[in-house]
């Protein structure tokens, strides 16, 4: 009887939690950054949380294009359309015990010739920490550039 109980308890302890973590929640804010010779930097409403994150960039106008929290399943591609031309692709790979998530982040650009394959304008692997911003930028867009600010929730 004691051996049966011991086997059950040890088995439960060793089995541990399920191997597949729940989807990673990633907040994405897409900003159109331009230089418009303003005296004071302009931020669209809703962009206050990223003000510090972009304070070192050489733009004076930040307009909000989109904002969304993505639920990205591990080992799967989660797509989010940034504009007609660009698509963000997130692929969470693994999760550490401190909550950090290693993930592939890619921005695909549609070519002029739609018969051709999309071009990976940015392809990066990051270890995102919960509550810490990271950003991608430099993508040409409507007289300015796109800045994508992300945060692992």
């Amino acid at each position, binding site marked *: 009887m004691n051996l049966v109980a011991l086997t059950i308890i040890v088995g439960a302890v*060793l089995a541990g939690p399920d191997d597949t973590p729940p989807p990673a929640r990633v907040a994405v804010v897409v900003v159109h950054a331009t230089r418009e010779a303003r005296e004071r930097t302009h931020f669209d409403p809703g962009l206050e949380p990223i003000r510090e994150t972009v304070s*070192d960039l050489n733009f004076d106008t930040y307009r909000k294009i989109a904002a969304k929290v993505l639920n990205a399943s591990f080992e799967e591609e989660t797509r989010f359309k940034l504009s007609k031309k660009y698509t963000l692709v997130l692929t969470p790979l693994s999760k550490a015990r401190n*909550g*950090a998530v*290693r993930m592939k982040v890619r921005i695909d650009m549609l070519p002029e010739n739609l018969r051709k394959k999309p071009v990976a304008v940015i392809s*990066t692997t990051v270890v995102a920490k919960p509550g810490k*911003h*990271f950003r991608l930028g430099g993508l040409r867009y409507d007289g300015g550039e796109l800045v994508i600010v992300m945060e*692992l929730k």
Partner: protein
Amino acid sequence: MRRCGWEKRVELWFDGEGAPTDPEAAHVAQCPHCAAQVAQWGALRSAVRETAASEAIADAQFPAFFDGIREQVRTPMRPRGHRKLWAALSLTAAALIVAISAVVVFRDGPQPVGATVIESCSTELEGATIRSYSSDEGVATVWITVSQDDVW
């Protein structure tokens, strides 16, 4: 108080709870010693009746009652060495569970949460350069730069 020659007879009469017409009853009525004894015995009997509500075993319960006694008498006692072995095994099992739990819980240990880390970055865009850096605010950044002449 002096003893009375009727005392033994009176005691037997009292135990048999004789009738008031017996000679012993007439004697108790005259003898202060025997009257005191009877009063004392009566008080004692009343007290015992009030406190002792003895558990009665009905006739129908006797077979089961004796079966229980027989079973306990016949059951051999577990040897002391066997008991010690089980106690040792239980202690060992408990210690093992604690040790395994500690290893499972602390094997990776808590890790500090720092800034996001850029492990690698690249681009498929011809003529573009890409770099990763951390801003003064500690924000991990991947930035792509293309020449002004490029159309994309």
